């Protein structure tokens, strides 16, 4: 486990370094001609993007693992529970309809949207529902929130707003600033830190709700805490970068294999895998033709869809065998 964690951290650091220096030609040139400008380029343009990609990946991996543990379901991830779409809807309402500019206030709108989506899911499917119910309720919420986001953008005062729906629903890290990165990552980091303190509770809940309750972790309270913290973390990131799919599903899935099925212990590996996936995907979109911006969520979705299908088929086989 420790060896795997070290390997994951090493892979993440390597990818982040690559992410920061690529494309390398302008940096080398500035190193020769104007090193101060080169520093500005790295700190003001490249660094926020790298930090956001890694931070958002951590959030998706960790909240995915926590939600999967709480719902006792391997398909409960921020996108499939509708919380990412809810966060995008919240942020769009805040930015385009209330004219909110401050990134931190926008993060609050995102968190509220994600929280309401998760509350809606709990209301529709319950906390210990079967996979099909959870999936259906989550898909319904995600589709409704996605459609509402597009509708509100189509009706927004600016005719350009509609084109933004692509970015809100598929995510992008392009040209984000340091204050934006801070607005996403500080609340998300705090929420993830608090989620980590619930790792033992999540492990115990896997043994049975009564076991967890008898050891001082009332499942209802733990559930509410996980929902609120996930909503804050996901909402803050979505409000700056849009929704990114499938990482919250793949990260925890791979992490559970490392943690031997302990959901609480899967939080950190899931976070690291999530970060590796998002940083890797954002490196891949750099190879788009000049002037074309490919949302990073397209890459994660293309990679994640086969795994999702494989998971669903596997579960179906288990049910019918």
């Amino acid at each position: 486990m420790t060896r795997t964690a070290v390997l994951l951290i090493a892979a993440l650091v390597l990818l982040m370094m690559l992410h920061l220096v690529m494309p390398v030609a302008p940096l080398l040139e500035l190193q020769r001609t104007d090193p101060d400008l080169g520093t500005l380029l790295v700190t003001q343009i490249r660094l926020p993007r790298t930090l956001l990609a890694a931070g958002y990946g951590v959030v998706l991996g960790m909240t995915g693992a926590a939600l999967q543990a709480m719902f006792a379901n391997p398909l409960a991830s921020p996108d499939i529970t509708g919380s990412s779409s809810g966060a995008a809807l919240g942020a769009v309402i805040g930015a385009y309809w209330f004219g909110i500019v401050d990134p931190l206030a926008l993060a609050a709108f995102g968190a509220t949207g994600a929280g309401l989506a998760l509350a809606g899911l709990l209301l529709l499917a319950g906390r210990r529902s079967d996979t099909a119910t959870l999936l259906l309720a989550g898909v319904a919420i995600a589709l409704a929130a996605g459609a509402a986001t597009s509708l509100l953008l189509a009706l927004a005062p600016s005719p350009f707003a509609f084109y933004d729906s692509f970015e809100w629903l598929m995510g992008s890290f392009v040209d984000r600033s340091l204050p934006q990165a801070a607005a996403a990552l500080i609340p998300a980091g705090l929420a993830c830190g608090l989620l980590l303190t619930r790792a033992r509770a999540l492990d115990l809940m896997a043994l049975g709700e009564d076991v967890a309750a008898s050891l001082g972790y009332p499942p209802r309270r733990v559930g509410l805490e996980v929902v609120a913290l996930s909503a804050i973390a996901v909402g803050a990131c979505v409000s700056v970068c849009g929704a990114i799919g499938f990482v919250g599903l793949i990260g925890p899935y791979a992490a559970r294999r490392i943690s031997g099925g302990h959901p609480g212990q899967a939080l950190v590996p899931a976070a690291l895998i999530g970060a590796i996936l998002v940083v890797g995907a954002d490196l891949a979109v750099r190879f788009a033709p000049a002037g074309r911006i490919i949302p990073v969520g397209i890459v994660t979705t293309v990679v994640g869809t086969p795994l999702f299908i494989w998971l669903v088929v596997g579960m179906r086989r288990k049910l019918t065998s």
Partner: protein
Amino acid sequence: MPASALLIGASIASLNLCTDEYLLLLARRDEIASVSFLSQDPEESPLWRIARRHPANRGSIEDVLTLRPDIVLTMSGGGRATRLLAQRLRIRPVEIRSAATLEDVASNLRTVAAALGEPKRAQPWLDRLAQIQRASPATTKDAMWLSGGGATLAAGSVGTQWLRLAGLEQRALPGGRASLETLLVRPPAVLVWSQYRSAQVSSGMRWLDHPIVRAAKSRRLTTDGRPWTCMGPLMIGEIERLRGAAR
């Protein structure tokens, strides 16, 4: 009697923001049957006040049918359907070109004035266009026209030709887009900042608020972004103003 004289007093319906511009500049009030709703929007056209004196249409021939225009004014390249439909409804279709060069602008002025039955009405505008071209500054400054999301003018486009008349040479940028890295590392001497819908929220506008864009070490000129949509004769006034400001 010349053929054009038969058309004096004809009423014309324009179905497009860009055709509206020529019609509103060249026609008398009673010659305009309808203009597109976009021209009546202050965010889209500097001519919105005069456009609001006329019935609006949403770009469809059906909208103007009851107004019984003699001529319907459209842009070429919009498909043959409108033209064929107009002919079938016994309305004469007149098409103008989407401006790709300054000569297209002159040619469109002539076409619309001729459709109004009075070709000489184009002359004051043609004179102004010729004058601004004659007085074009001998030297140009390195410049970037900038709008939401870093959108800029494509190399060789009519926009760059207009900008050159103001003494500003649009820098060719890959993908027709200014990047933060370019603005930081190699900022142009002049940034021509389009004010098009600048007060409305979009991710493009958010981009313009990035610390790197705000701190770009370039001289900043603002431009009314509305005439840049069609790049038609309204550009003449805007370029004269920019030329004065860029000195």
